């Protein structure tokens, strides 16, 4: 894994070495093992390297071709063998070629079309001095970040925005529109980043800068219209099993110890189990981390959720001799401890302050043990473990009422903790007029207005026209179940660009990879027919059949889902003085109060409850609105620092 950056002056003036040095220094923590740069005339490229794969030992970037084309590459290629075959690279040579070498050869062979041949997690930049052309691209899902900025006489790019701010005259200002999207939890649509004038190369996008012009194209998009029809249920099973094995295998190319996040859920369970099995074949061990509440925590949590994921996770871990299972227990650290540092690490507002504490604890422990690769399963809900509940609404809406009723009753039988009212809402909701859905939701205490879960200032929301932005992004703020589940899942996958979060792990000397967001696995899962997900009342029907023996029965039989950081309110209550102090600092900032509803947050702090933490409205207000508001306020202060 690397971080990359570069500067090009279209007017031909030489590149500023000092600026490139500063960019390199800022990106060095993301690639601590090596830092190099290349400069020639009006262009300069750099990369910093974190050695993870065995072939990273041969990485000598920036790489120049015989015609002077120069490439910097950040990432891991998952199709090295196919690529080598297409490029005519012998197998013996392949072992000594870094991924960047292969990427360079692909660029020399296919020019800008090279990106169509690359599979994996990557961001790439290629400068052709003879054509005075620079092109940038990111992988399909956006696992590696890449940002760019353009002004008169300057085009610059970098893995993280902070490096772009090392260039004189690159403004560091908030992008208000993106702030509104973030606070309203809208999907990231378009190239805007959190900073005005700084754009992201979108996942699956290629950008070409030539003749002082920028053109873009999507070399890859997830296709929500595609449906895969196979001959039999067993064919689906075989296909999913193969995709899962391959996705995990791709992520396990690592020259050091491997670890994984392991909860009591299906996704991390499947990933951990498959990884353990594959590593056992290599006689390697797997370190599995499970975040658990503090000792003795037994308060009720939200309906349908449970607090302690250790039993389920441990049941899985004990099935594999090569898993070392570690519990990461909630500590006494204040929720906002280290918030500035983490905000700086990702260059964007943090989303979940509660999960941050255990996530950081896992990274720190993994770092101390020399782990190089950390597996996660953040995309599983939209891919392998999609419940398939949308089938109910499809059956209902298309008039297959008998089948719908059978399925509905079967779901209730298999999942008795689910309330019939909720199942009906999922079936009928998509077909109700939106105003009626809102009214019913309010009556049932189900739906919440934006102000109830978001800290966005009402005036700012009006000025930014959040409703219109949501409509343009295809996002329903009433959270009515979608008639088009695939489109919704694609939107959720694109809701937050995963690049910065993945890069954050590099600061701990780790590469983070998510097999559940593997491109081919994601394509496959999105294309599956709904009846492969929900059948005979069994949600995740296909996954159950494929991994039934892999996961312990307790994972399949436990009703509901684990709740990460279930005891968050204990930490939050202990952190109240710090939260109040932080809010007081935010109140003094000239910008924060215009974007965030600080009054509402202050009101929440004043009304801090002593119980009722299992209630949805309480969780939305205090864990959602308040804590996310504080994290966003901290980000605004980070972008526009002051001395108050």
């Amino acid at each position, binding site marked *: 894994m690397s971080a990359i950056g570069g500067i090009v002056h279209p007017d031909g003036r030489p590149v500023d070495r*000092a600026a490139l*040095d*500063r960019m390199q*220094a*800022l990106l060095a*923590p993301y690639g601590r093992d090596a830092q190099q740069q290349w400069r020639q005339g009006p262009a300069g490229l750099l990369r910093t390297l974190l050695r993870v794969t065995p072939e990273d030992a041969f990485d000598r970037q920036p790489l120049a071709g015989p015609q002077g084309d120069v490439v910097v590459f950040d990432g891991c290629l998952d199709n090295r063998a196919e690529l080598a075959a297409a490029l005519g690279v012998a197998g013996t040579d392949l072992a000594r070629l870094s991924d960047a070498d292969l990427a360079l050869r692909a660029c020399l062979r296919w020019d800008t079309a090279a990106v169509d041949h690359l599979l994996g997690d990557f961001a790439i930049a290629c400068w052709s001095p003879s054509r005075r052309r620079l092109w940038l691209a990111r992988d399909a899902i956006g696992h590696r970040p890449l940002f760019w900025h353009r002004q008169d006489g300057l085009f610059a790019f970098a893995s993280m925005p*902070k490096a772009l*701010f*090392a260039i*004189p*005259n690159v*403004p*560091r200002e908030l992008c208000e529109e993106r702030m509104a999207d973030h606070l309203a939890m809208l999907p990231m649509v378009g190239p805007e980043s959190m900073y005005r004038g700084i754009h992201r190369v979108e996942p699956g996008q290629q950008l070409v800068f030539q003749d002082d012009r920028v053109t873009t194209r999507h070399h890859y998009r997830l296709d929500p219209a595609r449906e895969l029809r196979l001959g039999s249920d067993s064919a689906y099973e075989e296909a999913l099993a193969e995709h899962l094995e391959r996705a995990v295998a791709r992520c396990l190319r690592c020259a050091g110890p491997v670890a994984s996040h392991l909860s009591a859920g299906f996704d991390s369970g499947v990933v951990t189990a498959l990884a353990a099995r594959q590593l056992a074949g290599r006689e390697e061990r797997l370190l599995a981390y499970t975040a658990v509440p503090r000792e003795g925590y037994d308060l009720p949590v939200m309906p349908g959720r449970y607090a302690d994921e250790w039993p389920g996770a441990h049941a899985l871990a004990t099935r594999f001799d090569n898993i070392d299972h570690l519990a990461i227990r909630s500590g006494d650290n204040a929720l906002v401890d280290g918030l*500035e*540092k983490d905000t*700086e690490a990702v260059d964007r507002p943090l989303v979940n302050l509660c999960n941050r504490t255990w996530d950081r604890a896992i990274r720190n422990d993994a770092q101390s043990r020399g782990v190089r690769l950390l597996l996660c399963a953040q995309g599983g809900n939209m891919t392998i473990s999609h419940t398939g509940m949308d089938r109910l609404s499809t059956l209902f809406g298309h008039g297959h009422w008998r089948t719908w009723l059978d399925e509905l009753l079967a779901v209730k039988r298999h999942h008795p903790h689910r309330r019939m009212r909720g199942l009906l809402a999922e079936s009928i909701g998509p077909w109700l007029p939106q105003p009626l859905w809102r009214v019913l939701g309010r009556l049932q205490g189900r739906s919440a207005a934006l102000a109830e879960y978001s800290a966005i200032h009402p005036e700012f929301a009006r000025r930014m026209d959040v409703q219109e932005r949501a409509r343009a992004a295809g996002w329903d703020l009433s959270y009515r179940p979608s008639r088009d589940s695939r489109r919704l899942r694609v939107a959720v996958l694109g809701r937050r660009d995963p690049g910065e979060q993945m890069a954050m792990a590099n600061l701990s000397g780790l590469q983070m990879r998510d097999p559940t967001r593997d491109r081919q696995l994601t394509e496959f899962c999105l294309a599956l027919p709904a009846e492969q997900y929900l059948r005979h009342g069994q949600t995740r029907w296909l996954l159950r059949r494929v991994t039934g023996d892999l996961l312990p029965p307790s994972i399949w039989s436990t009703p509901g889902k684990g709740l990460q950081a279930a005891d968050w309110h204990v930490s939050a209550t202990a952190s109240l003085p710090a939260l109040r102090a932080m809010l007081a600092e935010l109140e*003094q900032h*000239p910008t924060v109060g215009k974007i965030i509803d600080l009054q509402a947050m202050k009101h929440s702090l004043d009304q801090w409850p002593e119980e009722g933490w299992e209630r949805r409205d309480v969780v939305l207000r205090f864990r959602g609105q308040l804590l996310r508001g504080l994290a966003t306020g901290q980000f605004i202060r980070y972008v526009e*620092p*002051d*001395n*108050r």
Partner: protein
Amino acid sequence: MTIDSGTGREDLAGVAWARAFARTSAGAEPSVHLAGDPARSPRSRADAAAAFGRWHDAGMAGSFADRERPWYLLLELARVETLAGNELPGMRENLAPDAMHFPGDPATRLYRAARAIFAGDCAAPVLDLFSTRRRWTWPARRAAEHPVDVAAVLQQAGCVLAHADAFAAAVAPLVHALASGARDVGGAVFAALRSASADTPGPDDGDGADTGGSAHEARHRAERLGYRVYSRAWDRVLPAEVGSSRGVEPAIDAASAAQSRRLARRLQRRLREVQLRRWSFDLEEGHLDSRRLASLCNPGGARAVFRQERDASASGARVTFLVDQSGSMRGRAWQLAVQAIDLAVQALEACAVACEVLGYTTRYGADDDNPVLDAWVLAGRPDAPGRLNALEHRVYKAASCPWRHGRRAFVGALGAGRGRENIDGEALDWAASRLARQPGRRKVLVVFSDGTPHDEATVRHNGRALLENHLRSVIQAIEASPIDLAAIGTGQGVGRFYRTALTLDRPEDVDRMLFDHLADLLVRSGRREAMP
């Protein structure tokens, strides 16, 4: 820039200082003129400067509040010019009061009245000073509430022209009355005086050891970089003891002497490496220098092809630590800076490396009453005002002073009530100027900062780019100079501006990282020096 040693020398005092500086250094003659007075000839302006240099007592201004100071300085101007005219008849014509105009009629009239009375002419103009103009109605009423007989005050002051302290005491009631009732006029007076102050020279370390270059030079450097300062009238440089927290017990006493000694030994070992690598070239004897062998083949070539190793004492090195003392440095950042600098200075002293410890912030915070901002507002908010706050630079340890003198003040420097804004570009320029003037060839400037320069007033009315671009320009200039510049911060923010930046996260990083870094800087500097 002005000097304030804590005894109150202020503002136009710098003019005198500038002349003294110009006489004793090879620097250029400071250009002294008064804004709003374009009619004054260069000769007249030079005489005005000379008069200040000779008769102005800068210490008196400190006894007046910020708002009062313009009025006091106005009267002080009248005093010194009167004295100059009396003693040096040749100057009298050049300093004629009629040639002086301040924006704002009352100020001009007061100045002229004072000149007239000080010259012995107790005529009428003073008597209707507060009653003929509408804007003076309120001060007149205040004057009525707190009666001040202007003519009497000026006459009394005119009797003690030769004694600056007595003069200041005599005009004090009038100055108080004027300041309390006529802020707007005070602003106008200030505007007239400000460029004179702006020409005043740069900082002093408070013990006369080193001046660090003139504000004249600083201003021209700033202008070359496209940087503007609305006023330098309230800027000041303080020695450590002024306003220091004498009661604060250094929290860093826990940092044991043993640790300092250990770090010092480590540092010494690294510096010794440089000493061993110090060579003299083109000698008649010594080790043969293979790189010069070719010249032996040339009939007319040099025959001095030998080199010799010799000691390069570490004491030739100079290190300056410059610390951001703005509000954003409160807490952990400040604790780390204090810990790092205390250990570093002790270790460097043990290695006989001379070092300075300087601090920088502004005099006014974002929510404070800011007279620079007020003056700009009162002047009608002219476009592109430039920096709208006053600098406060502090010398905690001059190169020639032992650390124990300033250490306590340094530790408590960011206590309650301290820590305002940070205008990094000018602070760096100041510190680098001081360092450049010190003897020695190996110079290292280490900045402790959290990154971005910020002053609310300046940013609001100029945009962020003004301070940031100036900082970048100053850094570029320093990096092009023989000084090695490095920045240390608690976040990655410093990396945005500095080419050599180090991030300290935890107290243990100070030991582990800072000293390696410092040794690298000294070694690098030493190697460069040793190069032929």
